[in-house]
């Protein structure tokens, strides 16, 4: 069984001696077939799981885990960043399902901390540190083994799924404009290493809430991307997290309208984050609208490109894309 399987193969998996005690705790954060089963492995009475085991629920969706394993292996070689990255211990497959054992990162998530703290000012330093880390990640220039298809990164899916976008109500003129952006990004020549799901729940903060302790969930990471879309996903979710503080039942689309299209303290905060990021990577400030739309296009078909079907988040991203296009003039992040 699970625990015995781990103990039986412990030395192979972790290259460390047998623990004096071990508990394997299965948790499931997503019951859909494309999700993973996650097992928290507690050893030697440590209060946090020191190892995390992810198991793909269906062999069809195992690529994400293999991709994460390869990304973490590459990142281990980057001095300074390797401290923030879970150690990739072992990746294998059993009965067709891929499993991946990685090091656990202690602490709580930045998402929880922002939701919990009475004042957002207490989290500002951590948000700043997250941006510094994102700049460091995105600026990495190396290649590694790939498991996803090439189409994902070069934007050809705009042509491939053109009918889908037209069917959703996007004009042909807009699609052509978006294709132009992609081509310009390609010609620009900048290449970015993307985390692929860089949001506050994947940023771990130490127990005292004073510094970032690690970045988790690298399943959608990719190298050599032509557009740095991580920053957009970070900003959309930061807006959502701030929105939930005042509206606990609010949804992502409402928060998107509130944080990107309604002037206020939150939009100023997002503006300063974007300004810091875009200056650091050497791009122009006025690219926000283009980058926002480009990122939402990518996110609305990401799963379709990778797995041949839409997941729930795709639909929400498509709705955000439509809203962003319809309200291009009133975006208040500068």
């Amino acid at each position, binding site marked *: 069984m699970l625990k015995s*399987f781990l103990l039986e193969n412990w030395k192979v998996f972790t290259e460390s001696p047998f623990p004096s005690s071990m508990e394997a*705790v299965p948790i499931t954060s997503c019951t859909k077939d494309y999700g993973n089963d996650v*097992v928290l492995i507690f050893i030697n009475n440590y209060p946090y799981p020191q190892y995390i085991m992810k*198991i793909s629920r269906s062999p069809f969706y195992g690529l994400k885990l293999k991709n994460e394993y390869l990304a973490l292996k590459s990142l281990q070689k980057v001095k300074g960043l390797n401290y923030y990255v879970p150690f990739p211990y*072992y990746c294998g497959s059993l009965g067709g399902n891929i499993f991946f054992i990685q090091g656990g990162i202690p602490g709580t998530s930045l998402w929880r901390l922002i939701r919990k703290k009475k004042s957002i000012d207490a989290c500002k330093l951590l948000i700043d540190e997250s941006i510094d880390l994102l700049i460091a990640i995105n600026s990495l220039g190396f290649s590694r083994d790939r498991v996803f298809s090439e189409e994902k990164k070069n934007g050809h899916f705009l042509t491939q799924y053109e009918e889908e976008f037209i069917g959703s109500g996007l004009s042909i003129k807009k699609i052509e404009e978006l294709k132009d952006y992609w081509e310009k990004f390609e010609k620009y020549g900048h290449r970015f290493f993307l985390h692929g799901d860089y949001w506050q729940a994947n940023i771990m903060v130490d127990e005292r809430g004073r510094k970032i302790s690690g970045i988790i969930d690298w399943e959608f990471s990719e190298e050599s991307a032509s557009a740095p879309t991580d920053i957009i996903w970070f900003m959309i979710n930061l807006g959502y997290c701030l929105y939930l503080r005042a509206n606990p039942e609010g949804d992502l689309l409402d928060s998107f309208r509130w944080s990107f299209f309604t002037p206020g303290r939150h939009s100023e905060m997002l503006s300063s984050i974007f300004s810091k990021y875009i200056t650091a990577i050497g791009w122009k400030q006025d690219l926000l609208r283009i980058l926002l739309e480009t990122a939402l296009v990518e996110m609305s078909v990401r799963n379709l490109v990778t797995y041949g079907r839409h997941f729930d988040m795709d639909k929400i991203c498509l709705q955000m894309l439509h809203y962003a296009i319809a309200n291009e003039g009133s975006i208040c992040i500068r």
Partner: protein
Amino acid sequence: MMIEIFERLKILFWGVEWGHATIYYPDNNKDTEKLQFKQIVNPNISSLQNPKDILGFEIDGRCTGKRKVVELVKTFPLDRVCALYFLIEKKTQLPFVMDIVEEFSLGKPKLYGIDPDYFFSLIPLNGNSHRLVEKYILGLKNDYSFRGTIIRYGKQVLIYAGLSAILYEGFVVTVFRKPMSLSSNTQNPGLKSYLL
């Protein structure tokens, strides 16, 4: 419903070469001691030559079909069984289940509490560090409303007082045979390593 529960539980059988799961459950619509059953085929195990069976029993709070459960376990060809599990509602049903498990001595039984609050967690309850684990899982909850905070503190008190059993919506008792090992990898071609 049965399949949904099993889909969540089957992670506990990771590393066990099971081909079928036969799950017995009471018919809640009828006042009868008879048990219904469902069989689930493991789609990922077709390459194995002699896959084993998982035998599962869902036992309701009234212990419907108690005698039938004992009879079934006795008559089932145990050499074909690689794991046995019981899903029970209350901890008071534990002695009944443990009696069956011990009689057939497949291995050391493991008890899990089903935590309904953080998605679907199966918290091991008969380990040395179960309080630490319970405390950690409790901390994962995202409800920061006044009500959520009160509930969290209440739960913490129950854990420290050793009364955490009332927090769970059910319990799972599992017992199993020896799992797959990397050392026997040649006999189990299903286990592949990507360690480069």
